[in-house]
């Protein structure tokens, strides 16, 4: 049966290629988007997990990891430091803007470098800490991806040019950091920040300290950094819904392309199907021939789809610095979508072929 399937595919190479491309497109959509979501989420999580603070102190209504809200007064820093069990309180402004290359987004943090670096065990490996309002430090990954170093320039807030004065390690939070004063100046938010990182004297005392803060400064929001890190994927609004919709659309695209190709095939091969029937081929046999053709096409689509996904992911990462991480679960889902979509798409044309009237099929022109 396979030689008939292979011969049929060889007979119409363009149609076979279009079908393969359809399945590959579905696989690519799933792999690239889930790879990007997973990569970016894990990247954020890795960087966030380097933060040593136990608590986030924010105003109610502000979002945690994806916020550009700057509505918290820095006067809380001193008050937090006075609370029993608090070792350090560091204000941070987190600003999110579209990436300079028009793709993805960029995070920038405004921090008091000395306090922030001390809290998170960070150090400058080249250059120095940011001081002036037009100076920034970046982490080693950013320097490598942007092929830049100390002395280089970087555009932030649209077209404002900032000098890179230092490279730091390990990566933690946003990859670009400037002084808190510089960020307040740029955003015109004097004496304000997005949140305050609170480090406890004893790591295990987080809950007790949080209760003390709540009692001393009621009406504010206190969160555990460990919970925020665990929920980064959930904190990106509707990411799950988006991915599920994408998976559904991919399955539909694959199924429709294969269905259309197989439907055309059936119409073209009506006479051959009549001959198969005259030879005594059962309905099951005819369905199997068409389904096998669809499955071979789908398998080729999977190979092409996975190859293109990996190459595209690698190139996008190289050019735009976006992080792709492919997971086995999504790869299996993509493979099932490609194969299942192809097999399901071919089912209707296959059943239609199996139910053709043999005599009419034999006389088909």
């Amino acid at each position, binding site marked *: 049966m396979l030689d008939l399937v292979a*011969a049929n595919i060889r007979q119409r190479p363009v149609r076979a290629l279009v079908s393969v491309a359809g399945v590959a497109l579905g696989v690519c959509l799933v792999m690239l988007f889930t790879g990007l979501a997973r990569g970016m989420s894990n990247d954020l999580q890795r960087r966030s997990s380097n933060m040593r603070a136990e608590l986030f102190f924010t105003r109610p209504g502000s979002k945690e990891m994806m916020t550009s809200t700057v509505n918290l007064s820095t006067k809380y820093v001193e008050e937090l430091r006075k609370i029993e069990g608090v070792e350090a309180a560091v204000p941070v402004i987190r600003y999110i803007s579209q990436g300079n290359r028009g793709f993805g987004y960029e995070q920038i943090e405004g921090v008091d470098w000395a306090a922030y670096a001390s809290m998170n065990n960070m150090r400058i490996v080249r250059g120095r800490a940011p001081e002036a309002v037009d100076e920034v430090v970046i982490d080693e990954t950013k320097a490598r991806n942007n092929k830049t170093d100390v002395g280089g320039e970087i555009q932030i807030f649209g077209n404002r040019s900032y000098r890179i004065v230092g490279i730091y390690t390990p990566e933690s939070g946003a990859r670009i950091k400037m002084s808190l004063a510089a960020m307040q100046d740029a955003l015109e938010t004097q004496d304000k920040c997005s949140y305050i990182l609170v480090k406890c004297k004893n790591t295990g005392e987080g809950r007790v300290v949080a209760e003390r803060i709540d009692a001393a400064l009621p009406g504010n929001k206190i969160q555990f950094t460990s919970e925020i890190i665990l929920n980064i994927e959930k904190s990106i609004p509707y990411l799950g819904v988006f991915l599920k919709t994408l998976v559904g659309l991919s399955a539909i695209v694959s199924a429709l392309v294969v269905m259309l190709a197989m439907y055309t095939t059936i119409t073209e091969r009506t006479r*051959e199907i009549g001959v198969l*029937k005259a*030879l005594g081929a059962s309905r099951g046999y005819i369905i199997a021939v068409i389904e096998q053709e669809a499955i071979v096409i789908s398998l080729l689509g999977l190979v092409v789809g996975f190859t293109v996904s990996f190459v595209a992911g690698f190139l996008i990462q190289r050019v735009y610095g976006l992080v792709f991480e492919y997971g086995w679960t999504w790869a299996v889902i993509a493979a099932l979508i490609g194969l299942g979509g192809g097999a399901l798409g071919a089912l209707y044309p296959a059943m239609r072929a199996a139910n053709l009237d043999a005599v009419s099929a034999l006389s088909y022109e």
Partner: protein
Amino acid sequence: MRTIVKAENLEKTYRIGSVDVPALRGVTLEVEEGEFLAIMGPSGCGKSTLLHLLGGLLTPTSGRITIDDEDLTASSDARRTDIRRRKIGFVFQRFNLFPTLTADGNLRLAERIHAGSGGNGMGDAERRREVLRLLQLEDKMHHKPLEMSGGEQQRVALARAVVTRPAIILADEPTGNLDTENSAIVLNMFQEMNFRFNQTIIMITHNPEAAAMCRRIVQMRDGQIIAPIATIQI
């Protein structure tokens, strides 16, 4: 001699739009095992309909068909397909070979369908070679239909019909698209198959010379067999 094909009072009416068009009007026919029978008659007289009914490709409006003691008319579509797979080989006027497969591939496909789920998928290479040799096609084994002449294509179609050694071969104007020389070759092959393997052959033809090679000729007109005058026993 044993009766292998038996048609009793067959009627077939096609419905075209709201009009009933009778194609067969009470055909009764018995064919013995190993017989080589020609069916002749003008176009539209119901020859092809009769052949398709005998092959189980169509069901009669009324009447009964028995193939090798199995009642075709009482069988389901799946059962009729199974009887056709095991016992009947078809040869068509337009060859109807698979254009994407070689001569050997076409024969192998027939073998695979004939073997059903019990086959090993490889068929019997020696038998295929023997049949192709008998039909003087050994050198065309790996040629595709478009690389062969009409006569060669029809010989491959004949090889496909006989390679599984069906008890009955139904041929619908097998020489209709062939020149005199190729017609003679194909008809000789039919005779050879009939003689060598004792296969029952029922052949529709317009060609009196082709019919003359058969042991019996049945004449049809207006959906009926003209009996007994035009039924010629050779």
